[in-house]
């Protein structure tokens, strides 16, 4: 099968389209014929090997040689212990701990997958897993966002951010979205009450304070976040620089204690139920996946570069075409 492979950490130039062996599912795994896979910041970090936590699979060279985690496809075969799925089922899920999605086929444990709602295209389904679940666990679970609260989302125009903005609006919050200038119109159209171009304004220094901050691209010091929070406000971050992460781990729970402020990391649990909750909101027309554009499997390097350079408005999708349904 064809796959996009990297054997060293580096720029998109280290990626190669290669013929590799089709994986075989273990007892509790499902073999998926990939139809669409979306690109996440975690793929970009896993390619660069930066920040350091992206080297979990291998410190010096990547243990995950095939990136790609937000997969939607058709079950091709199942392991002997698999009960929930059978051949021909349409499934989707977030394979972030396993990777392998930038390929024609991938194996994944049964328990992290969900049945794809029939009304979603594979492209739409692939737009959901990681970003939508980060947004849900951030806004609903960590944030417990209430009507009228002031919420700020940093990295609001990306894959998780576009879901987070819509969820926060759905829960009745007053939402500020921070991203680059090209994405601000889109954020307004999703319902953001205020938008900030990060190149113009530092949201931790403009005198505004928030009840909840969700930072999807954290790189500031914990003191800056503390400054931007209202009393009893919380700030959670997913991903970002290693220095910020370590600071948060060491100081996050203590630094704002006197004023009831809490700064912490959001460790996302892969959850088929949360995933289906989010696609259910789409089916109920409460939220919409924002899809920027798609690329073919051979264009994964361009797709990663597009995302890594901050151009992506919402999600980037890789449409995977197997040879068998190709013309000729």
């Amino acid at each position, binding site marked *: 099968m064809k796959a996009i492979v990297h054997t060293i950490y580096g720029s998109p130039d280290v990626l190669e389209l290669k013929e590799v062996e089709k994986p075989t599912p273990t007892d509790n795994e499902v073999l998926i014929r990939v139809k669409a896979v979306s690109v996440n910041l975690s793929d970009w970090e896993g390619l660069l090997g930066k920040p350091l936590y992206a080297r979990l699979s291998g410190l010096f060279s990547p243990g995950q040689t095939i990136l790609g985690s937000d997969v939607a496809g058709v079950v091709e075969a199942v392991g002997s212990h698999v009960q929930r799925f059978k051949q021909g089922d349409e499934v989707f899920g977030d394979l972030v701990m396993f990777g392998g999605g930038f390929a024609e086929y991938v194996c994944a444990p049964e328990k992290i997958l969900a049945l794809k709602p029939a009304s979603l295209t594979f492209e*739409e389904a692939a737009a959901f897993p990681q970003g939508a679940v980060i947004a849900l666990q951030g806004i609903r679970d960590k944030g417990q966002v209430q009507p009228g609260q002031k919420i700020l989302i940093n990295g609001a125009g990306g894959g998780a951010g576009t879901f987070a903005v819509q969820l926060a609006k759905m829960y009745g919050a007053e939402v500020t979205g921070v991203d680059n200038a090209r994405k601000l119109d889109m954020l307004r159209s999703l319902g953001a009450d205020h938008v900030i171009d990060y190149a113009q304004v530092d949201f931790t220094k403009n005198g505004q304070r928030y009840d909840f901050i969700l930072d999807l691209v954290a790189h500031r010091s914990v003191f800056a976040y503390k400054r931007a929070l209202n009393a009893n406000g919380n700030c959670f971050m997913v991903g970002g620089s290693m220095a910020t992460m370590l600071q948060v781990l060491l100081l996050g729970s203590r630094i704002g204690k006197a004023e009831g402020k809490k700064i912490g990391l959001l460790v996302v649990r892969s959850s088929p139920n949360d995933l289906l909750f989010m696609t259910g909101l789409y089916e109920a027309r409460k939220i919409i996946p924002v899809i920027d554009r*798609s690329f073919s499997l051979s264009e994964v390097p361009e797709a990663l570069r597009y995302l890594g350079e901050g151009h992506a408005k919402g999600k980037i999708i890789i449409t995977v075409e197997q040879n068998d*349904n190709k013309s000729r």
Partner: protein
Amino acid sequence: MKAVVWTKYGPADGLQLREVAVPNPRENEVLIQVHAATVSRADTEFRGLKVPLLFLIPLRLYLGFIKPIRITILGTEFAGEIVSAGKDVTRFKPGDQVFGYTGLSMGTYAEYLCLPEKPAALAGVLAEKPVNMTYEEAAAVPFSGLEALHSLRKANIQSGQKVLIVGAGGSIGTSAVQLARHYGAEVTAVDHTGKLEMLQSIGADHVIDYTREDFTKNSQTYDIIFDTIGKSSFSGSLRSLKENGTYLNANPGLLGGIRMRWASKRSGKKIIPWTAGYSTQNLLALKELIEARAIKAVIDRRYPLEQIAEAHRYVDTGQKRGNVVITVEHNDKG
């Protein structure tokens, strides 16, 4: 820029990949970087100039008498990104993602095209791309979606009505089936065997395989019969129409059109030979319907720009299910 140039009226081998100049937008125009286009049945009919007799002379005058001269790039549907805008343009700016239909000005088989911001006489129309679609999906809906939307609105479609769609597995057909379902109608889709499963998957309540069954002879009657390809028997269709029913034909041909006008004068049934509806307002309505999940793009195959002749040959076979999409790669990017 790369473009597929239409060098002669006739078979698909007259479509040739060439290097041509990037067009310059006029003051009221935008320059669009095309990311996806489609090959429709209309494109293949234009290619060989297989059009109704009435249009043959005016079209040759418009396109070029012996071979295409004034219009040399085919293709009417596109999705892409605005690169630059003339000074009178107010609705769009560089970076905006758009989709649309270029009408008779054609020109989507290319890396770039220019289009007036507001629909012109030749019916080009563009609007912001639906946010939940890729470029490939968005390119597959403007023409068929506008046709289906405008036609079903003209027929004043109501919830609970029985609607029959002929050529349901084609481009207009797949949009019409989904829209009719969205309006709450009970939909019967007519097409050949290989397309029926797909039609059920997009919501058709009943399917009829025309190779086995003639819908005009099964004693069922309908509130609306929508022939998207001009293949149904006209008198038979009228018999299958309820009193006060509506017959629509998106492709009646010259004689068919005259006959329909004549028949509509003499019967209580409403007969609509052909509709257009290529307005910005309708395209925006279509975008909203897509975002509200009423219409999905049905994509059969994708071909790169370089293989467009092959895509034409495939559409020529009449086997396409829904849409055939052309993806346009840009090497200067990323």
